[in-house]
């Protein structure tokens, strides 16, 4: 099933949750909608599911207008952040719900329903919990049951709203890997919403980065990390150093200091310079584009993180390899291995 969204606009009062969004999702894709809270990602997901309606714009599934149908007719599996399981039903009945409420004409007989539920519980590896109630399960188990329930109706599309948002870090990591392999197995077009970049980059085939109701970039996880299209994407994904610079006459200045960096093809004016923390190479004083005094050094697993006060007055954090000797009080030179400059 392909999904196509055209020029979608949705306002809540004067707040534009979606401000002209265009998106195409291919059949069998696992797509992540990534953005900070308030970026409109959940609103977009809910409109695709039929739980919200846009003010204007189009949504189509396989070329047919989806907005003509309600949530009930769209055959979309939706997984909620807080599971939304039915508390008064056993796990088995929760999963069976979608099959039991089908119109009488197409409803399966009891034996078929039982077999199907069993199959789904096996798929999410929780068949031994069939008779429990949702309140007796852990968060990770509840989310897997919610997923099994959504899959019961054989959805044309699977939508997940911050599926792991309410879980602790360790369970979240396990479930990420599990979701990836599950998607590989069932291969249904899926979109999940997350504010966690690591989650988006690790799980999805393609990542859509959103901010303030607009799409900033669509690309593979490598694309959005390695070649961010906008200043927002660079700042949001990966840990970046951001410095305000001036471009004029082929020279880049930080404050009043010219930087030894190439400025070809850059529009003159106020700009932002972005460098990944680990792309800032440490050298002896006077050797690089920047110079600064080390304030603190802390060790983070494979790297050491140093806070450096640049001579221009800004303070930045860099990640250097552990074998580099850095001490508070040292004056060092810094040279960006890679950097990007965005106007504005």
């Amino acid at each position: 099933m392909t999904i196509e969204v055209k020029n979608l606009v949705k306002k809540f009062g004067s707040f534009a949750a979606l401000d002209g969004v265009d998106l195409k999702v291919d059949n069998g894709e696992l797509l992540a909608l990534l953005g900070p809270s308030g970026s409109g990602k959940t609103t977009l997901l809910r409109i695709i599911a039929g739980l919200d309606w846009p003010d204007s714009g189009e949504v189509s599934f396989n070329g047919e207008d989806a907005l003509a149908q309600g949530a009930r007719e769209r055959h979309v599996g939706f997984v909620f952040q807080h599971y939304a399981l039915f508390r008064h039903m056993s796990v088995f009945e929760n999963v069976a719900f979608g099959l039991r409420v089908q119109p009488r004409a197409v409803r399966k007989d009891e034996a078929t329903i039982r077999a199907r539920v069993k199959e789904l519980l096996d798929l999410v590896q929780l068949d031994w919990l069939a008779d429990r109630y949702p309140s007796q399960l852990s968060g990770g188990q509840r989310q897997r049951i919610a997923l099994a329930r959504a899959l019961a109706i054989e959805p044309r599309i699977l939508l997940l709203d911050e599926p792991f948002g309410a879980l602790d870090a360790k369970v979240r990591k396990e479930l990420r890997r599990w979701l990836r392999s599950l998607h590989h197995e069932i291969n249904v077009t899926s979109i999940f919403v997350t504010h966690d970049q690591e989650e988006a980059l690790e799980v999805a085939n393609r990542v859509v980065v959103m901010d303030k109701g607009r799409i900033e970039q669509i690309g593979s996880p490598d694309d959005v990390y390695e070649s961010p299209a906008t200043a927002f994407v660079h700042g949001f994904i990966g840990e970046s150093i951001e410095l305000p610079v001036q471009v004029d006459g082929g020279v880049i200045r930080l404050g009043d200091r010219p930087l030894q960096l190439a400025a070809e093809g850059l529009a003159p004016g106020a700009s932002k310079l972005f460098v990944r923390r680990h792309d800032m190479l440490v050298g002896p004083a006077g050797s690089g584009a920047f110079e600064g005094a080390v304030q603190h050094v802390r060790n983070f697993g494979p790297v050491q993180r140093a806070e450096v006060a640049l001579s221009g007055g800004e303070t930045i954090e860099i990640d250097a390899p552990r074998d580099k000797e850095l001490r508070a009080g040292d004056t060092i030179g810094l040279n960006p291995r890679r950097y990007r400059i965005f106007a504005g």
Partner: protein
Amino acid sequence: MGLTLSWLSIIILIPLAGLFLKSFELSPEQFWNILSSRRTLNALRVSFGLAFAAACVNLVMGSVIVWALVRYRFPGRRIFDAIVDVPFALPTAVAGVALTALFAEKGWLGAPLAALGIKVAFTPVGIFVAMIFIGIPFVVRTVQPVLQDLDPEIEEAAGSLGASRWQTIIRVILPSLAPALLTGLALAFARAVGEYGSVIFIAGNLPNVSEIAPLLIVIRLSEFRYADATAIAVVMLVVSFVIIFAVNRLQRWAQSRIPVR
């Protein structure tokens, strides 16, 4: 623990025990004669029958009111929300006088109803109306917090799984509210059975027709037939207790299907 038990005994158990002791002054035969007299039986029938009917009406109408108060935002919602408490706060005699004035043959509602041939004041229908009036806040106030806690997402989940609105209500919402609904029903019923003040004004108090059991107790007391009064009281107590116990069991059963979070 000790304090709780002592307090409970002083406030509730000792008076009840006193009631039973008093009724033992009667021989079993006398006891039976009082109870099986036509007037007593009719009074009990009126009290329990109408109270149950009123509680059922309150269950349905109370649910509708709660739904509107919790799920919709409309002008004056807070005022309506406050009005629900009026039957709680209003002295029952005042309520009785007000209802009687309203439903009397020349009253605002009484007159048009009389034109239709329906007489409310001074008939059992009047008792029924008064019982509905005083019972409604019990249903609303017990169900309201539970419905507020009910996540609207579960309705969206049901909808996206293909359930119609009706299926969502029957299969998802009502079962989640069942324990609270039963509690509300029990409370409204218990209150209506014991209601005296608001009922006696509108009832007409015709023996065997519109005489409620609490009134009969008062009449017996004013005739200094204390043992008769306590005999009726004991029956009311036992029946009420049995009904409350049954509802409690039902509620337990409903709750056992929704284990505590």
